[in-house]
């Protein structure tokens, strides 16, 4: 039960918020984006935080999911749920095929390869106008409905998006605690050592890459139906960077850290908006300062700080605490 305590807390929060603040912009609009980002960040965190594989192109999978949903529903008249499945099938296949050559790379080379993948997908989305509508985007995507329950209001989207987010968090927690989850963490520690222990690193890496891609595709489909309009710039390199930032900011190798990071990075620009021209500078400065002073992440950093304080209160001689996400990645 202990490992699901966080999930219960999160569920409680998700349920209470709209009851306390019904029809509040930050709950029914911003929190929906935050939940969407959380789905993406939790998936990416499996890849980055647990398997230690950097991806600067995650928005590509998000985009493939969104565009498959958009194109299949508007041009071929398929129902949204089949479209969503088609998107996941396509994304999963692409991820599976790309996994082997890409995941051989390490550190900055892997960063570059995933970044390149993201840019290629972006260019294809822009150039294949006949199919995607080009930079002007693709509109008229139908809304989702669930057993006759049309998801057409902000509050309903809040419910659906939060439910999916909780589901994804639950799945991620289960994966991490499973046998393959342990294999993942071993991989992160040292790939050679993991291989020595009899872990098939290629299979494990491919698996986590595909899972991360699938969750991004799912988020993409939801996004397409929620917005009813998609254009390539929602899936560009900057969004990939934003997702990585969410994971790192929250704290690598912590699922709730990823959720926390997603919420912080979604709300922060909303709050910085009033600074107008100063917004860009302030955002950059906050990013730098947080990473310099809390390199293990905001969520993990704050959690450890809290633990340390609690411990100090209990025992006068504090035992050193090992922070959860402190593993160093090999740069080589």
């Amino acid at each position, binding site marked *: 039960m202990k490992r699901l305590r966080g999930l219960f807390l999160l569920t409680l929060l998700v349920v209470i918020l709209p009851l306390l603040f019904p029809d509040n912009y930050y709950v029914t609009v911003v929190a929906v984006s935050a939940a969407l980002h959380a789905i993406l960040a939790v998936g990416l965190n499996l890849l980055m935080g647990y398997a230690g594989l*950097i991806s600067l192109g995650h928005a590509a999978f998000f985009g493939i999911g969104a565009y498959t949903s958009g194109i299949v529903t508007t041009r071929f008249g398929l129902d949204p749920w089949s479209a969503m499945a088609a998107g996941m099938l396509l994304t999963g296949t692409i991820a599976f095929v790309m996994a082997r050559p890409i995941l051989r*790379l390490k550190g900055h080379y892997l960063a570059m390869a995933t970044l390149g*993948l993201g*840019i290629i997908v972006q260019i294809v989305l822009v150039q294949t106008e006949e199919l995607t509508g080009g930079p002007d985007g693709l509109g008229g995507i139908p809304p989702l409905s669930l057993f006759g329950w049309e998801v057409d209001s902000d509050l309903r989207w809040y419910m659906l998006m939060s439910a999916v987010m909780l589901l994804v968090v639950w799945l991620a927690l289960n994966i991490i605690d499973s046998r393959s989850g342990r294999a993942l963490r071993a991989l992160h520690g040292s790939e050679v050592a993991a291989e020595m222990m009899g872990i098939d690193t290629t299979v494990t890496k491919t698996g986590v890459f595909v899972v991360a891609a699938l969750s991004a595709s799912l988020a993409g489909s939801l996004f397409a139906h929620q917005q009813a309009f998609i254009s390539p710039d929602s899936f560009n*390199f900057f969004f990939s960077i934003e997702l*990585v930032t969410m994971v790192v900011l929250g704290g690598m190798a912590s699922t709730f850290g990823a959720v926390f990071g997603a919420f912080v990075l979604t709300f922060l620009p909303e709050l910085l908006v009033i600074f107008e021209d100063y917004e860009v*500078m302030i*955002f950059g400065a906050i990013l*730098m300062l947080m990473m310099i002073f809390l*390199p293990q992440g905001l969520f993990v950093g704050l959690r450890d700080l809290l633990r340390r304080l609690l411990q100090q209160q209990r025992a006068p001689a504090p035992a050193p605490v090992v922070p959860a996400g402190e593993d160093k990645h090999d740069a080589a």
Partner: protein
Amino acid sequence: MADQILQFLLTGITVGATYALVALGFAIIYNASDVVNFAQGEFVMIGAMSAVALSAGDGGLPMPVALLLAVLITVGVGVLLQRFAIAPARGASVVTTIIITIGASIFLRGVALLVWGKDIFALPAFSGDAPIHIGQATLLPQNLWVMGGAGLMVLGVHWFFGHTTIGKAVLACSCNRTAAHLVGINVGLMMLIAYGLSAFLGAMAGVLVAPITFTSYDAGVMLGLKGFAAAILGGMGNPMGAVAGGLLLGLIESLSAGLISSGYKDAIGFVILLLVLFFRPSGLFGRASVERV
């Protein structure tokens, strides 16, 4: 056809020379501190924008003075970046340093936006706009400045690391920090020098290309990206590899635009980069890395 190819090659080399300078900056910082500096493109922008700001208007400085000051300003920014953003985060993971330098690039862009506004600016060409004909192909005098300047700086960097005590000391820090410290090298100072040198290269690239490409507060983003790609293509941490990577990327882009499809030229560049990495995971001229257990 031959004339066309010659023009594509000349174009590719000019564009590639810019990428090469940015990539060289990436390589130097990576060598010295294992950090990929995503703010490298912003050095280019700051160099160009300060040159424009200093030389513009009636009260503007004469061009050579403005250029010199612009380069000095950028070097100052590079040194400050090392001192206040990179040094305090020493030992952080790859991803953390990536985010820090991305944060730095956003911050610098934000400052540039406030200081210089969002307009696009042009710097006057150093020696006129009259095109030079080579057969059917043409070049601008400024293109020669870019190529010549890039060539000189590449040689300079090569000489600096191979033949000066300071250069060798910087290299020593990148090989083994502790050992370098033990033999009496001031590691902190060497880091500052590496970042300053990298910023210098960026600023030079900025002032050399600004008359051709124009500049604005967000001009560094794309250059930073292409420079990073070039550095990876050549093999991270190999300065001459980075230069080769830059030239190659410029040539690939211009040849694909000319011979295949201008819409997909960037995609073609990245596809080739991916293919290279699939077969040589450490780039064209990089050393294969070995994981320590």
